[in-house]
């Protein structure tokens, strides 16, 4: 059942929010031990929230545009009085004394938060294997990863634990797991959704976005959580047009860009689905145009210098003084070193080291400074491409969901999972992954729709057209020969 239908039914009193929640909790108790999508299931909070929605309906009050809709929150979003761990030992047990803006918005609009979802520690990773509390399994094949870093959020939607989930995307952390779990995942324009209360990984790249089972649900959620927040200086100070309203637009006359110099690396089954997507859009009336984004391939380097640099500073606050873990030592400086060594996992330490190095005296110009210039090149290349095309299509992930441990000890192998998603974050643009059939092993493949700054309405028109085409083709395949 789509979110719009749930809200209509809850508001009309046809169904109780409490009943919907109990169904979700039953599904969670059945499959969560196997999946481990959550760091914390908020049973009491969720029941209280559902009861409040039902009470509002009974009183005749408007319970809000997400009345009774269940949501899973990535565990890097601050929830007042509810543990927020970032899947890190250094954070363990910390209960924020405040709600992040999106969390407050969800509370105020009648959504029912069911839990905090697992992630790669501090959102650094592409498989959710880097969690201090153990990995999340892909609900479609539990021998495989759900992707990451928002793996718990993607898995919770794919497993039916919640009607939608929120994740954060710094280099692909929403789109890649959405692709691997067969759900819709959106990274909006930088500044579209407030970051206040999102534990920062890389401040100039992080964006919150939804995981949903349909394009319409994603549009609906973004219509609620998008918009200006005076508590976030980088929040875009304007109203956004309704994305739900844009869905029916169709793609006739739209120019869909194929990046001819896209870095190689996508598996053949993924490439096949991408080609099918181009064909479907052409059939729906769009024009396919060839574009170049020459700097696309340098995104990985720019990203793995910029993101760790910002992260090294953002994570310096974990010093054992005001909250979180402390390892006692004879003096404060020794306490810092011992606490941070014990509290951070390998990947986080590696990125703190890399980022500290990239910013340090004598290396700034060679690494961080240069990466900022490459970022500009990528941004400008996209600008030129968007003069020729309204949206671009690429794979969201080079492959379908892979098996645990398959990336081995080489961090770079894991980093390559983000090849197609990273440039979007560097440019600050929106992009989304739309499930587009299956590849190897019958596992889902997502097609990524990319658009220019604040071009979400066009991006959603294309995503909706893709969704329609895949629904029609599976209906076709399902019909008797």
């Amino acid at each position: 059942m789509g979110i719009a239908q749930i809200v209509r039914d809850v508001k009309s009193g046809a169904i109780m929010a409490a009943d919907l929640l109990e169904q979700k909790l039953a599904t969670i108790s059945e499959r969560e031990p196997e999946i481990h999508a959550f760091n914390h299931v908020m049973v009491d909070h969720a029941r209280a929230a559902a009861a409040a929605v039902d009470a509002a309906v009974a009183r005749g009050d408007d319970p809000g545009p997400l009345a009774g809709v269940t949501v899973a929150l990535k565990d890097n979003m601050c929830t007042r009085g509810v543990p927020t761990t970032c899947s890190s030992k250094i954070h363990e047990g910390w209960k924020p004394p405040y709600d992040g803006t999106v969390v407050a918005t969800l509370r105020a609009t009648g959504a029912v938060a069911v839990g905090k979802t697992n992630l790669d520690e501090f959102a650094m990773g592409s498989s959710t294997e880097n969690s201090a509390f153990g990995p999340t399994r892909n609900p479609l094949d539990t021998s495989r990863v759900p992707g990451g870093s928002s793996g718990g959020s993607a898995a919770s939607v794919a497993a039916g634990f919640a009607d939608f989930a929120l994740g954060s995307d710094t280099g692909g952390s929403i789109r890649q797991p959405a692709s691997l779990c067969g759900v819709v995942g959106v990274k909006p324009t930088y500044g579209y959704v407030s970051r206040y209360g999102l534990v920062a990984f890389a401040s100039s790249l992080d964006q919150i976005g939804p995981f949903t089972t349909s394009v319409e649900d994603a549009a609906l959620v973004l219509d609620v959580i998008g918009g200006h927040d005076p508590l976030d200086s980088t929040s875009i100070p304007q109203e956004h047009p309704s994305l739900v309203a844009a869905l029916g637009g169709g793609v006739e006359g739209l120019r869909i860009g194929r990046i001819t110099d896209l870095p190689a690396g996508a598996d053949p089954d993924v490439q096949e689905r991408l080609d099918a997507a181009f064909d479907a859009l052409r059939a729906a009336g769009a024009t396919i145009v060839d574009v170049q984004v020459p700097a696309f391939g340098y995104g990985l380097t720019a990203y793995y210098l910029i993101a760790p640099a910002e992260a090294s500073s953002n994570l310096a606050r974990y010093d054992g003084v005001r909250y979180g873990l402390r390892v006692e030592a004879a003096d404060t400086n020794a306490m810092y070193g011992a606490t941070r060594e014990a509290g951070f996992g390998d990947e986080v330490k590696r990125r703190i080291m890399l980022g500290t190095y990239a910013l340090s005296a004598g290396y700034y110009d060679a690494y961080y400074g240069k990466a900022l210039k490459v970022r500009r090149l990528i941004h400008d290349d996209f600008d030129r491409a968007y003069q020729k095309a309204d949206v671009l299509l690429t794979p969201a992930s080079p492959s379908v969901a892979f098996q645990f441990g398959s990336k081995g000890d080489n961090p770079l192998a894991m980093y390559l999972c983000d090849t197609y998603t990273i440039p979007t974050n560097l440019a600050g643009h929106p992009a989304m992954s739309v499930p587009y059939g299956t590849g190897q092993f019958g596992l889902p493949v997502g097609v990524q729709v990319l658009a220019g700054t604040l071009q979400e309405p066009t991006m959603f028109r294309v995503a909706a057209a893709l969704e329609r085409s895949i629904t029609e083709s599976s209906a076709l395949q399902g019909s008797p020969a």
Partner: protein
Amino acid sequence: MSAYDGLPGDWELVVGLEVHVELATETKMFSASPNRFGDEPNTNIDPVTLGLPGALPVLNERAVELAMRVGLALNCTIQPCTFHRKNYFYPDMPKAYQVSQYDQPLNIDGHLDLPGGRRIGIERAHMEEDAGKSTHVGGTGGRVHGADHSLLDLNRAGVPLVEIVGRPDIRSAEEARLYVNELRAILVAIGASDAKMEEGSLRVDANVSVRKPGEPLGTRCEIKNVNSVRSMGRAIEYEARRQIDLLESGDKVRQETRHWDETDGRTHTLRVKEDADDYRYFLEPDLVPVAPSHEWIQRVHASMPPLPAARRDHLAVTTGQGADSEAVMSVVERGQDHYVLAVGHLGGDSARALVYVKEAFADLGPDPTVPAIDIAGLTKLEVSGAITATQAKAILAEIIANGGGDASVIAAAKGFETLDTSALESVVDQAIADQPDAWAKFCSGDGKAMGAIVGAVMKATQGKADGKIVTALLNRKKS
């Protein structure tokens, strides 16, 4: 440029001052908890102040405007500016980075003119956030060394600061004192800060070096922990002599940060520059640039009150005193110049009012409640000659003690004066009329004849008339 008199040989002292000023805003630089001194520890805290995960900074508009005022008052160019993160670990710095301005500060290239005319260059005046306060427990004298542990109060963390970086144009400890005093007067006048060194809302670090005149700048040391203008002067003088002793005995000055110890009157090594931190400055991604428009700058400029130098000039011209005279300097410093001018507007004598206010208003603050009209009356009475300067002083004390009062009435009560001049004139006229012979003799040049008339006036006034005034009246009537 002249060698500092107090230095041995022909050494020249070179001082550049870095002054941190807490801005007088209601809230912090980047969050909405109160900016207030003296509250219970850790009560003025919010997610941003604590550096909580997920918290984001938003710049305080008032802090920017006050920083612009500082820039305008110091004749700086105001330019588009950005914020950087200065990364270092210290327990009173909650995020482990300080948000500060680095290569694009708000205010650059200004100057401050000392009373007496010397111009000191201002390199920049940039915005940044303050740190919290540490208390060291279990050591000696609250020092960090030997402490058992430390306690942190983050009320001050995130308080908006302007750091005013002066050029090394100061040539004596006395000039350094003049500079800080003048800067303080400016900051208070424009409402940017209460600038209290004892509360730490104005903090001075002194970069001190010595050289032979005409030679390049010597190696400098940065002196910290000077908590009053007086100790800053002492610290500079001590440090100059220490460096000269080193150089004259063939040693070198080592570039370092030194701590002024008020108790032993010396500076001590705090940190050697070679192991200076690597701050890894980079643009703060959670904030956006500030680009003050011409209109915004004009609006701030228009809202600025007159600066102390201009007020001293005005007061000097009105009262006929020197602009750097002690009376003018101190009355303007106390913000009581408008009071002196008000006395003048009410018909009082400004020059006398300046003296009264300078002498007797030290504790009355910038807005004395004593009615200016009463002071005007007192000056008139004194200038008319009805009372003496000594009597005026006594009356002034009474006016202040009572929060006001009519000078003539107090004079009468004290027996200083019984009659005003017009009343006295009629008594004099009566005495003339009663003794026409004496008057005729007096008018024809017999000075002694005046005695009889004066005697009659004294008898009629029971001796309370001022003989000098009676004489003046008689002389006037004769001509």
